[in-house]
């Protein structure tokens, strides 16, 4: 698709905007996107938020009214998030999960973390005295290995699928299922 503004370069920035319930789509090349302030790569720290705002607005007329969507933990509404592109707390990720997942795929090109996880809190022992008792942290401390192994297996699975090694992918999928079941069982017992 060619850029709607210059008609020369291919469009790489796609912005959907809803103004008064009317949906408009904009397809621009990076140069034009930058020039028109909608680019992800424009200078202003706010322009990325403007762009997110464009992506975040609920589709016109579809589904339940988004204003009702509210994080029970911090009170942030989806509408506020759409306006500011700021989530209010970690629980917002759960409250807005159905909306966030496609958004993350769109802005990040992925919806699964493949990087590090918090350091295995083996050294926590040293500091527990100064910390309030924390059941959740203790529970996480008991299964650092499983999480790490899962992340690695999922990563290998993605790779296997990409390389079209389906036999290996199937084996990995089984291993992941087994490990997930094991982790769930461990949690239930704990």
């Amino acid at each position, binding site marked *: 698709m060619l850029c709607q503004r210059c008609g020369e*370069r291919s469009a790489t920035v796609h912005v959907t905007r809803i103004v008064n319930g009317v949906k408009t789509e904009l397809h621009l090349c*990076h140069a034009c996107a930058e020039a028109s302030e909608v680019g992800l*790569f424009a200078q202003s720290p706010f322009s990325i938020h403007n762009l997110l705002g464009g992506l975040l607005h609920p589709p016109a007329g579809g589904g339940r009214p988004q204003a009702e969507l509210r994080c029970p933990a911090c009170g942030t509404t989806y509408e506020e998030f759409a306006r500011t592109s*700021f*989530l209010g707390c970690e629980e917002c990720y759960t409250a807005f999960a159905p909306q966030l997942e496609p958004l993350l795929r769109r*802005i*990040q090109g992925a919806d699964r*973390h*493949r990087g590090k996880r918090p*350091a295995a809190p083996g050294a926590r022992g040293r500091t527990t005295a100064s910390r309030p008792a924390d059941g959740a942290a203790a529970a996480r401390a008991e299964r650092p290995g499983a999480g790490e192994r899962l992340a690695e297996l999922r990563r290998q699975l993605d790779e296997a699928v990409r390389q079209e090694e389906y036999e290996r992918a199937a084996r990995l999928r089984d291993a992941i299922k087994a490990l997930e079941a094991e982790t769930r069982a461990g949690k239930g017992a704990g």
Partner: protein
Amino acid sequence: MSLERLLRSEGGAWLTASGPAADVVVSSRIRLARNLRRHPFPPRLTPAEARRVVEEVRAALGTLRLGPSGPLELVELQALEPLERQVLVERHLVSPQHAASELPAAVAVDETESVSLMVNEEEHLRLQALAPGLQLHAAWEEADRLDDGLAERLDFAYDERLGYLTTCPTNTGTGMRASAMMHLPALVHSNQAGELVSTLARVGVVVRGIYGEGSKAHGNLFQVSNQITLGRSESEIVESLEAVVRQLVERERGARELLYREHRTELQDRVGRAYGILTHAYAISSEEALALLSTLRLGVDLQLVPQVRPEVCNELMMAVGAASVQYREGRLLEPAERDVRRAAMIRERLASRQAPRGEA
């Protein structure tokens, strides 16, 4: 390190050492966004909750030892004068939004300014590691170690599926922004910079001017960083950015060689004039100073100005900002007076034949 010493020093040790590809890459930086569990993210913090976040971080830092770089000392922004905060902004230790924060917020820095931490900026924590030249891997290891040390003492908001949970979904996952500060005078001179910015954007690499807007970056200094934080491991992000930076280094060197071969007289003339003005001006704006320092730095890298060391150009580029100049004088100055003091400082630094820095 005391705040006084931090503000008085001429910039971090990372500025003065020379690293790999230091002729083009001033510094490498890794930033990690982290948030604490059971506290709302900064945009929703009340002053009391923001204070609790600062105190939790202070307590964690109190027991954290990072080795050679020493402990991180926490400084609360509310305790600083506006001018002092502005100096920290010019030194890239806090962001402009952070400096303007009305909530309790803080910055923590180690002795060498190679590791630092912003508290209650857009995220509860933004860890930062800096290394001179092109050393993204080294900076990542440094940031990784600080992150591990903090994770043993603080409970980070983390999800098995989405990784580190952040205020802005553009940070979710690794929460990592890797970047290189690059000096690209020859690419700008040959009008290739604008095209590169749009080409790189297509592969998820963001290029921003460090001073000024867009491609009109004063001092020809650019920040080149990754856009994507989710779905790739930290090492993958570092590696792919490093590959891009290496290519940019080669392009810049090629453009410099061409300048040197085909336009040597013009180049020598420009470098000589820049040196002449910088060593003899009695009033100079920060914009003009940055432009001339960039040209001088190019001349230094091409060995046209043997009497100037490259790190002096780096230091001066960080020191010519309005707040830094005023802080050095210990008071607010009218713009005209500021330009006079700035020119005096530059003359002095270039005339001293670069005596060892950091008298503080």
